[in-house]
């Protein structure tokens, strides 16, 4: 079995541990072993070390990467920001020998050394490229046939593509998440603002009104062009924005609808028959009705259930 170190970040383990559980359930069932990276900390977030000093960014990221190096595993993460921060740090360290030297001088203070032996992946890259769509299709207990899903890949998973191992053919017209959703039986129609930013991240901390304005534009595009049964994302930050900000907009009277939101692996876990109380338990926007629909008898395509 291929083994990957699961880099958790901050939001997934502390705000959305059901997303973490969905990773821990689906990957072994699909033939990928998941191992912890003990003592890993913040990637560090864009608003922290990367905004203060490039060497400090590379050292703190480098420390996280050395944990995986010691275990001889590549890293996979479900947070887009973490994916971007770690990938760019690795690129900065490796592209400049003098920077690598300074970073390793810092890491030597804590008895660590960056070697560059662990590559960094997003969990959706592992699913799309290493597991593959066929294997995913074969592993389903339930089908999402007939459901319409609006996809949200997020930003950092797509750009800057030159420092990532797995790329889209056209990063401004991404298809990997669409294909992952279609593998579950659902349709994932295009919408005009598919590659637009949801407004979470540094923007939201700096100016929440601007963030909500961007989010609303995105949400209305989804509602008017797709009118989906739910939204599926591969970014934990996008998940939080989509899940909590619909309520805010509704309370302000700016929208009169709510669309359930899932992290992609939560939908995958549900279609594989895993327990929603573990893999899809925490949300502000209600999704119980859709979860019950997904795991209903009429959608069963296989008797075998994963536990």
């Amino acid at each position: 079995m291929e083994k990957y170190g699961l880099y958790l970040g901050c939001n997934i383990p502390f705000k959305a541990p059901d997303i973490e559980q969905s990773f821990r359930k689906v990957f072994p069932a699909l033939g990928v072993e998941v191992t912890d990276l003990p003592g890993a900390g913040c990637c560090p977030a864009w608003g922290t070390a990367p905004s203060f000093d490039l060497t400090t960014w590379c050292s703190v990221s480098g420390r996280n990467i050395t944990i995986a190096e010691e275990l001889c595993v590549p890293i996979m993460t479900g947070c887009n920001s973490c994916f971007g921060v770690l990938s760019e740090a690795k690129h900065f360290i490796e592209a400049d020998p003098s920077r690598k030297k300074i970073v390793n001088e810092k890491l030597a203070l804590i008895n660590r050394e960056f070697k560059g032996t662990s590559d960094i992946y997003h969990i959706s890259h592992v699913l799309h490229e290493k597991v593959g769509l066929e294997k995913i299709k074969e592993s389903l207990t339930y089908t999402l046939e007939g459901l319409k899903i609006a996809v949200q890949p997020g930003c950092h998973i797509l750009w800057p593509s030159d420092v990532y191992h797995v790329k889209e053919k056209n990063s401004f017209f991404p298809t990997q998440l669409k294909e992952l959703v279609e593998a579950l039986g659902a349709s994932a129609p295009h919408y005009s603002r598919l590659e637009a930013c949801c407004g979470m991240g540094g923007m939201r901390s700096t100016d929440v009104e601007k963030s909500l304005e961007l989010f609303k534009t995105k949400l209305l595009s989804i509602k008017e062009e797709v009118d989906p049964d739910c939204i599926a994302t591969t970014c934990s930050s996008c998940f939080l924005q989509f899940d909590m900000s619909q309520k805010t907009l509704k309370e302000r009277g700016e929208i009169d609808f709510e669309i359930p939101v899932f992290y992609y692996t939560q939908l995958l876990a549900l279609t594989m028959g895993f327990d929603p109380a573990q893999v899809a338990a925490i949300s502000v926007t209600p999704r119980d009705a859709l979860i019950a629909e997904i795991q209903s008898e009429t959608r069963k395509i296989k008797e075998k259930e994963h536990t």
Partner: protein
Amino acid sequence: MPAIVLDSEKIKDSVKRIMEYGGTGVLKCVQCGACSAVCPGVKAGFPVLCRLLIKKLLEGQFEELVEETSTWGCQACNRCTEVCPQGVRPQEVVFAYRRYQASELAFSSSATTSQMNLFATGHAVFTEAGPLREKVGLPAKAPTSAYDDKAQKEIQTLLTESPMGELGLF
């Protein structure tokens, strides 16, 4: 009366400083505006990002921009880097400028909490999530630095032995 005074020493100084902070591609910019066309920050209404930020830096306005909040609205999404025909990597210029602003403590006071959390727990964002994790069948303590003293000390060492340590945030 001239609107902008172009002072070649001031420009040289501005370029040198932004490059030292990490904005190494800044001199390649030809002001085409492709970056601003794809930037969600510009779309959201932040006035000084991408093309305009680079223009001001190339005109020598390095210290004059210190109070500008637009840079803190950058998502680091790197759409700009993807479309730039010159290889400027505009996001790196924005973040390089942020590093200057941070050294002058010119950031929102709400951002201080993230730095303090990072030092205390190793996480920029931390909440005690034991019951929530157990509810979904996971161990109460996540296998991260939050519950690992040795890991926290390592992260703290890296932070104190850095320009961040000199700012008195921890």
